């Protein structure tokens, strides 16, 4: 089943059928990771450029491994070691790279909309690996894969996203994707970290974590960025933890079958207690493994010829 989309900019507007195709394909690629030899020749001859203008460990390594495991040619670029520091514009950088015959670009950039810009100015397929506070679609897809593998279905699933919703591209992609699949998604956090207007999203906003925690199957904790405190958005890290951290005591309030997820990197002791992050309720490392499978699936599905 070919995808309707030709680029992956975000999950907003992506159909249920496309998401199903990506997740089903990811299950097949997940199997490759358990083999003695974890490489297949599928994308031999496809050249992929990883264009990372923002720091990233997990996502970048995950994409690179996914590309290499599919036998693609891989070129990686980071801002610090490039001519961006000499003042070259994004468009010039990319047009030059395209002249080197690249088929697919994986991009992370702090400006929302960079992936669309690249699609408009190159002939390459584009995968968004995080653009500003807009979207991070492969993160949401790997989370959805993890939920579906764990619970067997999306039906009846309830997900609570906790923390800095305002600045989170992960939360946005998560909400678009999960809502499309019929999952009930709600958010919880302090008012200062909530968008002023959540009317575009079909979610309920909570502020009292303790009161609602028991109602959900997945407690999805977002990273709290330390620079939010000087900005005056949270009084202190300690107070944030007291109100919104997933502590040992709070875990006891969770529904018995509920699980904990986190996109990483974790701030241990702030949004997640040390023991909680490593507990058997946590699917965090499972998320990381599934991330590779989902990225292999997206790379594969977007690499085919588009002419019908």
């Amino acid at each position: 089943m070919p995808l309707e989309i030709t680029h992956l900019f975000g999950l907003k507007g992506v159909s249920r059928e496309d998401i199903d195709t990506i997740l089903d394909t990811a299950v097949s690629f997940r199997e490759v990771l358990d083999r003695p030899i974890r490489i297949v020749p599928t994308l031999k001859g496809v050249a992929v450029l990883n264009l990372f203008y923002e720091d990233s460990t997990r996502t970048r390594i995950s994409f690179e491994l996914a590309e290499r495991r599919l036998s693609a040619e891989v070129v990686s670029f980071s801002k610090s070691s490039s001519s961006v520091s000499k003042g070259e514009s994004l468009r010039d950088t990319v047009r030059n790279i395209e002249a080197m015959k690249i088929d697919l670009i994986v991009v992370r950039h702090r400006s929302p909309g960079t992936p669309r810009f690249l699609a408009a100015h190159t002939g390459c397929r584009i995968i968004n690996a995080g653009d500003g506070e807009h979207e991070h679609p492969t993160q949401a897809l790997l989370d959805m894969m993890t939920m579906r593998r764990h619970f067997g279905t999306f039906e009846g699933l309830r997900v609570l996203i906790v923390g800095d919703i305002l600045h989170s591209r992960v939360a946005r992609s998560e909400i678009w994707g999960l809502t499309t699949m019929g999952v009930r998604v709600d958010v919880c956090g302090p008012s200062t970290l909530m968008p002023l207007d959540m009317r575009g999203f079909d979610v309920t906003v909570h502020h009292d974590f303790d009161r609602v925690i028991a109602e959900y199957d997945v407690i999805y904790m977002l990273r709290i960025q330390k620079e939010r405190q000087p900005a005056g958005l949270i009084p202190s890290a300690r107070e944030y933890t007291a109100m919104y951290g997933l502590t040992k005591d709070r875990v006891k309030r969770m529904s018995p079958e509920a699980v904990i997820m986190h996109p990483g990197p974790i701030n241990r002791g702030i949004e997640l207690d040390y023991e909680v992050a490593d507990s058997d309720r946590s699917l965090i490392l499972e998320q990381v493994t599934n991330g590779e499978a989902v990225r292999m699936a997206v790379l594969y599905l977007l690499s085919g010829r588009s002419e019908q």
Partner: protein
Amino acid sequence: MTIQSEIRIIDAVGINRLLLKITHEILARNNGPANLSIIGLQTRGVYIAQRIARFIGDIEGVSVPIGILDITMYRDDFRVAMKQPEVRITSIPFDVDCTNAVLVDDVLYTGRTVRAALDAIMDFGRPRLVQLAVLIDRGHRELPLCPDFVGETIKTQFNQEIRVRMKEIAEDGIDEVTLVTLTGGGDD
């Protein structure tokens, strides 16, 4: 490209006989079921493999390891195929090292699927030997490959196709092999 005619050439009883024949040949060639493993190629090869494994169970009273292989990741036409082929499940839940691995498919045609399957199987280990069993050999090989066990050889033209239907597959519903003659492009 439209279907000009479709005629049934083998019915359910015939398929059963051919698979039983193949099973006996596999057992004879490999001196019994020890060290055997049966690997079905997606999609219909999987069900043929299951039936052969069941026959081996009936005849020898043992169960042989059985695997499922999807060769999509190893196709050689990825860059030219117009449609993105669907990647299906692979599951080899046993160690292929030192086994006599029998690859099973419904129809042998160009040999490209088998080439891909050989590459795939080597990524799981090093079988002692690999053999190929097919229900139908329709000719027109594009690679130097030869099956070890064949249910029936059917000479076909380029504008003809062999369709194998198996009752395990919902859209097929029945067991039969048909010869389809196409008019027009004949490009598949």
